[in-house]
């Protein structure tokens, strides 16, 4: 691939990632938000994280972009989730999850 083009894509990605992070803090810092807006913003992390995670563990993109049910990821998630909740751990599900997926593929090679 053309590395100069990739560099420009990265610069573009930087601009569109940095501005949405920077502008709210510059414009809103210290201001009291409307209580309804504040309550809505408090729910955003609880919404955005599952919106990314659930399709990621349920569906797998196969050849030609068709979607398949991903049983191994789902089972791994169902094991990791309660353990992560019990130990309030950010890293446990990463390490245990990768180990379970690796073991699952080793035991049941497709």
């Amino acid at each position, binding site marked *: 691939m053309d*590395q100069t083009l*990739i560099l*420009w*894509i*990265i*610069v*573009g*990605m*930087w601009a*569109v*990632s*940095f501005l*949405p*992070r*920077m*502008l*709210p*803090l510059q414009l*809103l*810092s*210290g*201001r009291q*938000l409307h209580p309804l807006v504040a*309550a*809505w*913003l408090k*729910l*955003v*992390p*609880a*919404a*955005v994280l*599952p*919106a*990314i*995670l*659930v399709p*990621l563990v349920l*569906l797998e993109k196969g050849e030609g972009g068709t979607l398949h049910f991903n049983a191994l990821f789902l089972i*791994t*998630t169902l094991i*990791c*989730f309660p353990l*992560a909740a019990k130990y309030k*751990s*950010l*890293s446990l*599900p*990463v*390490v*245990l*999850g*990768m*180990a*379970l*997926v*690796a*073991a699952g*593929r*080793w035991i049941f090679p497709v």
Partner: protein
Amino acid sequence: MTNVIPSSGRQIVNGLQRSFPIILSYIPVGFTYGVLAHKAGISDINVILMSMLVFAGSGQFIAVGMMAGGAGALAVILTTFVVNLRHLLMAASLSPWMAKWSRPLLVLFSADITDETFAMNSARAVELNDCKVEALSLNITAHSSWVLGGALGAVASGLISDVRPLGLDFALAGMFIGLIVLQVDSKVKVITAICAGFLGTVLYACGLQEFYIIIATVVAATFGLGVELWIKR
């Protein structure tokens, strides 16, 4: 209630300690990104540069996937914008707690807002005005470990023929499980989370693979707010 502000040295150490769980997940997830990006034909310098400038886990994964699939520059940048737009909402929700920050320090802080640093910083939002150094220490340490993980992955990429036998493709999902467990701590948030997960999956399966995150987020957070108001009524 304590009014004593810890010394800068103490705050740096506190920030390092609090970033530790983030480092433990950023290294393997960043490593996976590095391996995949290198395999997609991106040069090592560009792999590292993207981690330094963009610093967004899922955004970088999606961009690498699109570039590998031959997508155009504009499509990659637009998708990155949409996928990372949630940071706008995170920055806005931290802003009421950062009145005493100078503008240059706010710029430095905002460059490192991710799901993970947001989770850590919002958990102690009341202390943000007094513990600026601690927050910056946490952010910069986390960002450094993300860059390091990516660099290691790019270098090791030649040794790894396929990421699947190592389970590396689960790293990002694992990190999100940990984040959800930290963030979803009330009944309304559980309802919001279930609604978002369901909607996200349906929209993704329907082919809205660039906009499912932002649509599901806005709809589910609004629904959750409605539930909250209905309970309090």
